[in-house]
């Protein structure tokens, strides 16, 4: 088997951990050899370096989901619980900070090779921002679609520190006529001639002063699986643009014609990126900015609560590429809505915590909903979108409880 790099045979560790977790969930221990088709049947792992307990979607290349209860524990997602998603298995297992370099080349006056020391000496930028996979919540699409069967845990919020991409591009001197930058990381395909992962951003976006080359995440260096030592941060845009182990920036004088921008990660150019299953012939555009979402974090589907007793709810919301203007909560399946109290504002691109006390529910089934409106007036839809890639879910989610 061509692994492309060192392959220690320690995979069993993950499965032993997974099996233990399954046992705790009363799951048949034979399930590891069978199919797992229910997205709620999580298999947990603690086998990944610099990571705590995560939902194992795939070992190689890693797809690790944040268990949902983590989102109830604070507005920032701890680095060791932050989700992980790689396209190719050729991931370096060693990064030497003394020899690592970031190259800037292409349509520039002065090609650069920057060491980490040079980057650390440049002016810095800091903000909180949500990093969310394009396919977050894909496992909830109906009809179901192919791809990583994430529930809501392919997202996280962190405080990022780094250098504005603009400053690095200015240092290289972008030539007139540049139209885009393409970012590449150290990861490589494991088979010959396959398309190495890279994503491009329009040159004006790349130079907006906010897009960041981050070297810190929540006050620490990034975990290797989250992109150590450098990661592009594109606030308000989906994670596919947040290139990990960023090592190469090419300034392009023509549109990016490579697979990952030209063909992959495209959405229907329709409201909510939504089409009818089986529909064809619609225009497509590269996925881009995120849209508002909100989640109840302190109660899960199936929870039992006391009838007639006020229900204390809390959760998270984010506005996509805008701040959170308001969060409304319904405890009656969307018939009536009350306004939640917003907690501390950590910035436009951050998660925002909220809390709400719902009137005591009558005995029976209770359908809770939270709905975010962002500062541009965009509100979460009540009907789920659908597209063949399972991208951009942002329907108002429903948590169903039983009051007794």
């Amino acid at each position, binding site marked *: 088997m061509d692994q492309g790099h060192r392959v220690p045979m320690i995979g069993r560790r993950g499965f032993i951990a997974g099996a233990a977790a399954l046992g705790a969930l009363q799951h048949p221990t034979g399930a590891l050899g069978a199919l797992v088709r229910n997205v709620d049947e999580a298999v947990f792992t603690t086998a*990944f370096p610099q990571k705590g307990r995560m939902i194992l979607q795939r*070992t190689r290349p890693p797809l690790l989901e944040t268990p949902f209860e983590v989102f109830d524990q604070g507005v920032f997602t701890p680095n060791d619980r932050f989700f992980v998603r790689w396209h190719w298995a050729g991931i370096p297992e060693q990064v030497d900070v003394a020899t690592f370099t970031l190259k800037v080349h292409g349509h520039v006056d002065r090609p650069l090779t920057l060491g980490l020391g040079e980057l650390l000496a440049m002016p810095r930028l800091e903000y909180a921002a949500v990093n969310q996979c394009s396919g977050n919540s894909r496992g909830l699409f109906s009809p179901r679609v192919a791809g990583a*069967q994430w529930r809501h845990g392919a997202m996280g919020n962190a405080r990022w520190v780094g250098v504005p991409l603009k400053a690095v591009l200015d240092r290289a001197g972008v030539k007139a006529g540049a139209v885009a930058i393409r970012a590449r990381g150290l990861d490589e395909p494991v088979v010959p001639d396959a398309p190495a992962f890279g994503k491009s951003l329009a040159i004006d976006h790349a130079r907006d002063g906010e897009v960041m080359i981050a070297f810190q995440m929540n006050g620490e*260096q990034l975990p290797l699986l989250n992109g150590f030592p450098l990661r592009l941060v594109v606030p308000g845009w989906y994670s596919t643009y947040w290139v990990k182990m960023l090592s190469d920036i090419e300034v392009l004088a023509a549109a990016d014609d490579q697979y990952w921008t030209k063909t992959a990660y495209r959405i229907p150019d329709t409201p909510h990126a939504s089409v009818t299953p089986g529909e064809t012939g619609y225009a497509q555009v590269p996925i881009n900015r995120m849209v508002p979402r909100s989640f109840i974090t302190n109660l899960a589907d199936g929870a039992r609560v006391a009838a007639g007793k006020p229900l204390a709810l809390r959760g998270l919301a984010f506005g996509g590429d805008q701040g959170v203007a308001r969060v409304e909560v319904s405890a009656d399946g969307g018939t009536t809505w009350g306004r939640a109290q917003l907690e501390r504002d950590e910035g436009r691109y951050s998660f925002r915590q909220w809390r709400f006390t719902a009137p005591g529910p009558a005995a029976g089934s209770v359908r809770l909903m939270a709905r975010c409106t962002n500062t541009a007036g965009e509100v979460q839809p009540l009907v789920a979108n659908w597209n063949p890639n399972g991208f951009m879910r942002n329907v108002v989610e429903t948590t169903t409880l039983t009051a007794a």
Partner: protein
Amino acid sequence: MTRIGILLAIAAAGLATPAFTASALAAPDTTTVTGPGGVTLRSVTVDLPQSDREFPGADAAAVNNNCLTCHSAGMVLRQPPFRREKWAEIVNKMIQTYKAPIDAGDIPAIIDYLAQR
């Protein structure tokens, strides 16, 4: 060398001779890079887990022989049921787009396996 190791080395050098201390301080630090504000980046070495899980079943030889080069089995086994045409489309994408080195003779068996799970 860990940061503590370096500090110990510098301390030990300091006890020796001043000249040796200067030399030790000037030596390239291969472990950390520090910038203004006390930001320090430290070299990292990890072992990424590898999966030894195989696709189950008596008809799994073709998928096990071809598909595990690029990815472990878990994500595939978590997919919802799809019609044969959808699996054919996915397998074709693996070959055409992602250059999966799949033996042409194994393609029908791979699609059959995936469609029948």
